[in-house]
């Protein structure tokens, strides 16, 4: 379960202030995947960072029960001079999982062949994405955070990653930001609409999508 209690967050970008959430209390129940909807710039990604714990709230508090992932497919942490394998080892150490096990899992999953032992700076963007996705799949989380799922690799790899991720979701939940309502329907059962600093929870993702779409028509 993740719960926001009277949470307030305002961001300042180049002098412009924007209220992302204003005194919001909401519960994300465990066992259901949630789609986050809202117009461009409403603060969906900021909200994901708050849930992850990489951004602090201005006021209020957040209660997290369960292991929460970093944004799925995040590759900013890869050090170009380290090999893919060394980068994987680092993540394994941070998360306290067996390093050899994770290294072996990602080796098989990402299909990098000899490149696995070469510096990441020599990777193509597709290889980097495969490595990142492999690491995300190699660690078990209770919640996976997804900011715009992007399919990587060729058709076979896409099918494989989709299948692996769906399998993960039998034990884990996903909190997903996406502009594609099809993707949201595919992965999520419930939804939250973020509008004017307020978050509204809907038991049914279709209802959340309908509300979001009527919001978009109003302006």
């Amino acid at each position, binding site marked *: 379960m993740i719960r926001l209690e009277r949470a307030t967050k305002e961001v300042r970008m180049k002098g412009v202030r924007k209220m992302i959430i204003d005194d919001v209390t909401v519960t994300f129940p465990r066992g259901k995947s949630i789609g986050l909807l809202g117009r461009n710039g409403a603060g969906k990604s900021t909200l994901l960072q708050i849930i992850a*714990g990489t951004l602090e709230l201005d006021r209020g508090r957040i209660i997290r029960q369960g292991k*929460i992932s970093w944004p799925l497919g*995040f590759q*900013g942490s890869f*050090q170009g001079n380290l090999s893919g394998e060394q980068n994987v080892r680092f993540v394994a150490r*941070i998360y306290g999982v067996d390093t050899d096990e994770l290294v072996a899992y990602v080796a098989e999953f990402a299909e990098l062949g000899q490149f696995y032992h070469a510096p990441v700076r020599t990777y193509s963007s597709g290889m980097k994405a495969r490595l990142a996705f492999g690491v995300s799949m190699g660690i078990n989380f209770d919640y996976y955070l997804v900011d715009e799922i992007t399919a990587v690799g060729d058709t076979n790899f896409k099918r494989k990653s989709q299948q692996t991720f769906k399998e993960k979701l039998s034990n884990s939940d996903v909190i997903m930001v996406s502009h594609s309502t099809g993707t949201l329907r595919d992965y999520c059962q419930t939804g939250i609409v973020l509008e004017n600093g307020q978050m509204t929870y809907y038991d049914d993702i279709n209802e959340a999508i309908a509300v979001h779409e009527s919001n978009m028509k109003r302006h």
Partner: protein
Amino acid sequence: MNYLMTHIRIVTAFVIREIATRYGRSPGGYVWALLEPVAFIGLMSLLLGSLGRLPALGTSFTLFYATGYLAFSMYKNMEGYLASAVSGNKALMSYPKVSPFDAVAGRFILQAMTSCVVAFVILYAATWTTNQPITIQWNYIVEATAFAWIMALGVALGNTVLFFKFPLYQKIFDIVMRPLFLLSGVFYVPSHMPHPFSDILLANPITQVVVLFREGFYVQHGDTGLDMPFLITTSAGLLFVGMLLFTVFPVARARE
């Protein structure tokens, strides 16, 4: 307890990562952390020693210069390395588990270990360059090192915030700190300087670190200008202010 174990694990991961990445693509990798200062001090003492005059203390210019330079680098190298710990590892702060202080702690531990090995190697070699018997008093050396590291940690933590908030301040800090090496008593004895220069030099806490460090190697008669209460209050004050700034302004995760 669990929380503590997690952070010990993360800091360890940082130490391993820094060893692999600090010297980037240069062949030899981390060996340069040792070779660089050894080569520099060796070269400097050869150059200065060849001038043929006696140092201000003892009979070996190499030992005199090495003690001063090492004491100074205990502060300077630590401060420089720690100041970029957060900005240099910013991407890793996207892992919810990693806290900015983990990056600082990892670099602190690595730099502390490196400095100790470097100091041992150089000082051991330097003691062979003098024909006088040396009585090493470890308590002074350990104390001087501790003060240097505490001040470096305080300054670096504070600068992590200030450099981020005021980029101009970073430029000014770099310029103002450049003569620090000349003003820290590395190749002279501050108390031998004429009044009022000696007092000015001794008001620099890094000079005090150098003076204290040398107490561990040289038996000196008369006033060395060492001011322990000043050193203690300055170190504690810098650490306190640095930690305060670092805690109050969570810049590591601010959006740019």
